[in-house]
């Protein structure tokens, strides 16, 4: 697969390919990803992120139509390759593919051959043999999407690899914030919770800081990985020291298994120290925006009252997720078609 070469007519072709299904935003942005795969935020430039978010904007408009489907990827086949159970992300990607008129095949752990001892390499070879256009992969081990990307002609979207990255989540978070707050530049964003085991945290830190936001993370020291600040964030161990200074709070999910493996003494103490409790919510400025990647452990990382908080954007994230994933699939599929 060849990439766009500067000076070739490829770029011009892209711009003049005006028959794009969705309405183009006014800026006539050049929605070009110079990427063959979306493996992480780390490899994206701020303008790549901008291109995806702009594209998502036009797809969000599609989603509001009475018949929210465009023929952009008609005839294309996307596989959802989920080696780890997931309902939301898998559904979101399936919907995104469907809304683009692509065929979407779900291949999940329970129905896969992994239990029969099939290796990731076998899986990759089989996908290759089935002539699939794109693969959306969720895996418990970091680097599994990179492994597939090296071996497949199809484009690969990382839908979460272990504790590494979850780029579409960060993109939809950024999209949600951009819609509510305008530009992210200079905004203070706080991530609270299990930073160490969170792929969302890593992708969010990279994404928000690339867009110019000031990022802070907060959690118990046992759940803060070493040198996380070098990814571009400040570290706090005490929530009350930073909570009331920020524009955005993203409350991460605390997995139950962390509670029982010695990282934390108890759920009760965690909620007290790091939870977005009713009391903290009451003291929070009404202009603060609250995010959560879902699913929420109500009563642990946040009290149920947060759902009614005017600036809780948790459900907006879900809607926007479909638009952002449409944008990712569309841009990668188009890039791939151009390269052929």
């Amino acid at each position, binding site marked *: 697969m060849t990439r766009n070469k500067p000076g070739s007519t490829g770029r011009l072709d892209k711009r003049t390919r005006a028959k794009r299904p969705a309405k183009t935003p006014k800026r006539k942005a050049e929605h070009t990803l110079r990427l063959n795969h979306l493996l992480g935020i*780390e490899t994206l430039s701020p303008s790549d992120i901008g291109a995806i978010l702009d594209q998502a904007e036009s797809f969000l408009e599609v989603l509001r139509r009475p018949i929210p489907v465009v023929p952009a990827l008609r005839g294309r086949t996307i596989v959802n390759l989920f080696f780890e159970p997931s309902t939301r992300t898998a559904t979101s990607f399936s919907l995104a593919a469907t809304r683009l008129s692509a065929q979407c095949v779900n291949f999940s752990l329970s129905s896969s051959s992994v239990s029969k001892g099939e*290796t*990731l*390499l076998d899986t990759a070879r089989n996908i290759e043999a089935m002539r699939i256009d794109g693969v959306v992969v969720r*895996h418990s*081990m*970091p*680097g*599994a999407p*990179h*492994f597939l990307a090296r071996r497949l002609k199809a484009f690969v979207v990382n839908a979460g*690899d*272990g*504790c*590494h*990255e979850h780029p579409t989540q960060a993109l939809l978070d950024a999209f949600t914030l951009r819609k509510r707050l305008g530009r992210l530049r200079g905004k203070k964003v706080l991530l609270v919770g299990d930073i160490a085991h969170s*792929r969302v945290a*890593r992708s969010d830190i990279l994404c928000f800081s690339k867009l110019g936001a000031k990022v802070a993370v907060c959690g118990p020291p046992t759940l803060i*990985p*070493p*040198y*996380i600040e*070098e*990814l571009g964030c400040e570290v706090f161990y005490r929530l009350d020291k930073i909570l009331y200074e920020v524009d955005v709070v993203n409350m991460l999910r605390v997995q139950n298994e962390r509670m029982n493996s010695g990282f934390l003494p108890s759920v009760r103490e965690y909620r007290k120290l790091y939870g977005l409790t009713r009391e903290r919510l009451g003291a929070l400025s009404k202009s603060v925006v609250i995010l959560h990647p879902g699913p929420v452990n109500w009563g642990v990382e946040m009290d149920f009252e947060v759902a009614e908080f005017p600036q809780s954007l948790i459900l907006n994230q879900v809607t926007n997720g479909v638009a952002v994933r449409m944008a990712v699939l569309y841009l990668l599929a188009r890039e791939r078609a151009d390269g052929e």
Partner: protein
Amino acid sequence: MANKRVLLAGGRVIDPLAGKVRIWDVLIENGKIVKLGKGLKAKQAQRIDCRRKHIAPGFIDMHCHLREPGHEDAETIATGTKAALAGGFTRVCPMPNTDPPVDSEAQVRFQLCRAEEAGFARVHPIGCCTRARAGKELAEIGAMKKAGAVAVSDDGAWIADPRVMRRVLDYSKAFDIPVISHCELAGLDYGVANEGLVSTRLGLRAGPDVSEAAAAARDILLAEFVGARIHIAHVSCATTVDIIRWAKARGIQVTAEASPHHFTLTDEALAGFDTNYKVNPPLRTEKDRQAVIRGLADGTIDAIATDHAPHTKSEKEVEFDNAPPGMIGFETAFGLGYEQLVLTGDMRLPDYINRMTVAPARILGLPVPRIEPGANAELVILDLKAQWTYTPEQVMSRSHNSPFFGRQFQGRVVGGFLGGEQFWLLHPA
């Protein structure tokens, strides 16, 4: 090759013991070095032009994995010792983590027998410290030593129970055999990468360097207490180097080795999730890499050992977490060391060769290799100017798990002598 006379003419002969390099001719007769000197004349001798070449004693690798018995799909004693010879190693010491583990006299004899049949590099087996490497009961160290084992180790596993380790150290005193410890503290977070910025960035399960340093500290203190010899395998981090330096200053009988990948690479190499960079102990930071080099330069780390660890393609072509640790190393060791230690100016050439020859021989109680009249002709011919690229086609090992393919090397082993036989590898002079 009986009665054969060979004259190595005009080579630079490295004496790793005296730390000198001299331009000398070397006359070999019947597999023995008979004369050294300038302008030697020898009738009916095969003359090999060694001008612009170096001659050094054959290298000794005190830490490798030959996978036989048990994993002959990855390597056999025959293929492994052939690859060793290609890298200039005339003697290698396989670790006993085979299947079954080498924990008895019979197993030691089996490996020696296989090596003899193969006829490539000599093999000096390392036996287990404990039966089946289980870390519980003493293995028959005395019988293994008598059969030819040169050290004992439960490599790959640290002996977690301090009472067992104490007894291993105590017992081994009777045989003057070094106990080689693979230092990895049990119970501390186990990972597939060094815990630090890179593991945080990549989300990899990580183990801290404390795991190695703390385990080394315990074993060194136990060795001091019982008055035994301890050897720390594949030192990878700065703290361990400091602990060994401290222990040596205190007079503890401790020795140590480092592997080429630990003084060449850092954990930054993991960014692409290439499983060929997965090793145990893991690649660490630049600070650690520098500390290992300093340790080798000042003698804190005595020896260079490859930790040659062959794995099949199907074992390595998996998710990073699932891949077994290890990379092959015989054929790249000399070039990496020359590039990272000598060309950088950190070590003089004879001192570097010392770490590959004299140091491991002393630790293992093997005859100290020298190029002098009367000694066996066990030597390698080096071309330090040779520029070459490592490619999968030239690999002699049965496995190809190396991250160094495509890398440009300077300096290589071009040939040598062992047991009266002459082996030529790539560029017959």
